[in-house]
């Protein structure tokens, strides 16, 4: 275990999962199927990857404003990533998590962290406390 990297909370929660670092940004709408949990954007270098239960790392959001809805639907359906770590603020992803938490009481933490030391395949825990600092711990 290493010291937790600091992060900024966009949506609260605590989750652990296998890390998947995306090489390019992803639009959840059009790029992710909430029925299967798979990345379906054929332009994306990681097309076909399973995102369910992962700590998903991406530099930024992209594309459609429907991504909030698709992300919330994935959380409802149980196909969503366990947590999302963004390189810059993206409220569209955060919104999906915030609304799913309001509707279903399921929390998927969404945080912003530029330096996080996350590597695909390792397990990591993302903590986003609404009253304290957010952090990422790599196992």
């Amino acid at each position, binding site marked *: 275990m290493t010291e937790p990297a600091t992060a900024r909370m966009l949506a609260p929660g605590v989750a652990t999962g296998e890390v998947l670092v995306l090489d390019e940004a992803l639009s959840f709408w059009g790029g992710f199927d909430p029925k299967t949990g798979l990345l379906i954007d054929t332009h994306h270098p990681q097309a076909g990857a399973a995102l369910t239960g992962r700590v998903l790392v991406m530099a*930024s959001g992209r*594309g459609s*404003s429907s*991504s909030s809805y698709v992300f919330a*639907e994935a959380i409802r359906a149980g196909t969503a990533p366990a947590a999302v770590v963004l390189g810059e603020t993206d409220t569209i992803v955060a919104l999906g998590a915030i*609304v799913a938490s*309001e509707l279903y009481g399921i929390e998927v933490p969404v945080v912003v962290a530029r330096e996080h030391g996350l590597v695909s395949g390792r397990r990591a825990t993302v903590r986003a406390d609404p009253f304290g600092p957010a952090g990422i711990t790599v196992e």
Partner: protein
Amino acid sequence: MLGSGALSLSHGDHAALRGDRGDALQLAMRIVTRIAEAMQARELLDVASAHVDGCLYHGRAGLDFARRLIEGGAQVAVPTTLNVSSLDLLHPELVRLDAGTTDEARALMQAYVAMGCRPTWTCAPYQLAERPSFGEHIAWAESNAIVFANSVLGARTGRYGDFIDICCAVTGRAPAAGLHLDEERLARTVLRVEGLPPALLRDDAAYAAIGHIAGGATGTDVPAIVGLPDTTTEDQLKALGAAAASSGAVAMFHAVGVTPEAPTLEAATGGLEPTLDMTIDLRALRAARDALSTVKAGAAVGSVSLGTPHHSAAELRRIARLVEGRRLAVPVYVNTGRDVLAQVADEVDVLRGAGVTIVTDTCTYITPIIERVATPVVTDSAKWAWYAPGNLGFDVAFATLEECVDSAEAGRLVRDAKAWGDD
């Protein structure tokens, strides 16, 4: 309740947050303030109108959210238009969804109308009679509408997504952050369009291709595009913005000498040193066209889809002129808004006479209208060509409008070498 404490709220905001004005306003204000905190806003500001994307059905979560708002007594506080839905209410026979999904999609549409939203069902609200004025703060969702409002109208909206759109409409408030603020609207990247044949620079497809390149190159930044003629039309700027918001997360661009906040490059950048300064030439445009096409010239085509975003009256008139008197070998679909459709009755007769299918209220790439039609699909939309391979599993070809109609007539992909400067 609030995390950082840096967000300062008005008395009205506090009252809504406490629940003094009902459950729906409390929920909506809680979401607006959480997003304001995520955006590190210091306060909220009043919005004059809203455009809501949450009426397009992607599963139960959206319906659960709309019903929660309605149960709490939600009504919009500002004029609010609605984006495309999953159904074509004017032509219901076109849409091939199963009965259960159709019922839920219709219930979602009805829920937003019940909250006082106008049933406009278009992704191009800037083509409606009333549109935002320069400098006005608004809360718009739908990526192509956001980029058009900011760039072409000079109105100010953040890159809002589903859910926050209706929350802003119900509260009349939005975070004072992002593109609502002067400094965030300055260009950080410069794209120079150079060396394009004049005929190509008059073609709407060139603008879609430029937008596709801009989105890939600049991601979430505001680009300043240099080298577009002062005759550039709103339809061309629409095509550019829609493509840039699909291949990237562009929510605003400047076209120097064309869009209202960019009389000069210096005005667009505010004198800031750009983080990227690149040239878009003919080779790049042809590469974009090819990247948006999974089939080559001469390939058999299954159908043609036009109008993503929804075509304007001017674009429908152009298509009518192109198809009049020709025999179309494959189905041609044109997406447009019901308000635009009502303005072009004569052209609609010509289009229908030529066998063109007009789709309103929805769009061919978000709902299974052409499910049983053989692919590939030829389209004049870079956005359609970008999303269709993943969303629908279709082969596509991105083409000029003339190439689309020529291909529909020939039943195979026709490329006009001259149009793309391929001597």
